[in-house]
């Protein structure tokens, strides 16, 4: 009986050494996901263009498994490497998600993406693939390194005379009409 009491006291005693009460007890790391049965490659790997230009990319999704893969979803993403540049991927492509038809065993499928360069600077485009059900794995493609040169196509300096002259001309006409109206009375 005494041994039982001693054992209970030992179990209830706090562990020796400092304890950070604010942190939860460490949990074992989750088991690493199984190797992804699909891979995705992006072509080309580098693009140089200007703001406003459209270009197309191709990604190849390959099923390495002996089983057909169904429910695959591919997603295009854009990220800026310059911290000052805000990048909204939605502006770059109107269709960034493709739901794939079932991919037979050992088969590949090419996906075409239409993109328009909206921001200048250095950016990266990549494609991820995951399955709608049954796995936590998200497979990412290689990066497409993108260099977008700024483009300022409208000559800003010359427009000032035009934007001033046009309202002035209409204002002059308005004044002339008012003067003519008064003189006819």
């Amino acid at each position, binding site marked *: 009986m005494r041994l039982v009491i001693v054992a209970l006291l030992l179990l209830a005693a706090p562990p020796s050494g400092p304890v950070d009460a604010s942190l939860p007890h460490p949990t074992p790391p989750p088991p690493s996901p199984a190797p992804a049965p699909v891979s995705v490659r992006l072509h080309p790997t580098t693009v140089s263009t200007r703001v406003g230009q459209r270009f197309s990319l191709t990604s190849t999704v390959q099923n390495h498994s002996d089983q057909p893969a169904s429910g695959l979803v591919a997603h295009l993403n854009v990220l800026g490497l310059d911290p000052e540049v805000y990048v909204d991927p*939605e502006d770059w492509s109107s269709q960034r998600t493709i739901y794939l038809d079932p991919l037979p065993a050992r088969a590949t499928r090419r996906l075409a993406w239409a993109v328009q360069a909206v921001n200048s600077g250095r950016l990266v485009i990549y494609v991820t693939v995951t399955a709608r059900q049954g796995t936590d794995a998200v497979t990412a493609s290689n990066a497409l390194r993108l260099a977008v040169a700024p483009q300022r196509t409208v000559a800003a300096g010359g*427009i000032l005379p035009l934007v001033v002259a*046009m309202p002035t001309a209409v204002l002059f006409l308005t004044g002339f009409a008012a003067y003519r109206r008064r003189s006819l009375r």
Partner: protein
Amino acid sequence: MASVDDRPIQEGRHAWRVVAGRELGDLWLGGRGLPLLLAYTLLLSVTSYLVATNQGLNFLEQREAVSLTLQVGVAVGALLVLLGAADSVSGERERGTLESLLLSPAPRRALLIGKAVAALSLWAAAWIVSVPYVWYLGRGVGVVGVAVASSLAVGSLLALFLVGYGLAISTIASSNRVSLSVSLFVLLALYAPTQMPTAMQYSWIGELLLRVDPFTAGLRYLGKLIINGHGPGQDAVWLVGPTVAVVVVTAAALILADRLNLHGGVQT
């Protein structure tokens, strides 16, 4: 030489010219035509200046700049027509001048056609004023000709729709306030589909709503011509909605013109 019996018919045929002449004079020499055009020119100047100089707006290629300015010009220019048309009959009714107009020998359809011509002149003036802006922004990328021609075609279609629509509302509205508010409210309701989430816009019902709204359909057609460089016939299906709308509202305006009366409402 016309016989005595033919004279009233011929007078009726040409009465719209007399009405149009008087209305044009009232609008451009003594009315609000020029002040409206001045406001329109200021809007185009501000838009063009921002498109050309503001880094936030000037982020896309030159075709986008032309398209943005052109769409503002066409939409607001056509709206000027609505302001003119919505005031045409209900304004006379409110000012107490409709009675003398109705007592004139001109057929009632001729009265409305004359007023429609005057309201459409607002769009014609707006289009002429927009040409220098389009020329400046579009030179160098070869879209000036396309932009000027397509804006004339699409803008005229929208102006015809709005003049018929405004006249129909104005004919039955008892006051100017009712006419203008109903006209603008319905236009706002038509504009609502363009604010749908992107996913909704790609659904069949979203696409249908976008094509039914004459404004959205017309402006999208303009964008496809200028930004995407499509041919005029490639996306002509977008003009089906505006064309149908023009036919419907014109027929409605002509039918209501025959029932035009002093106090508003529909005379049976």
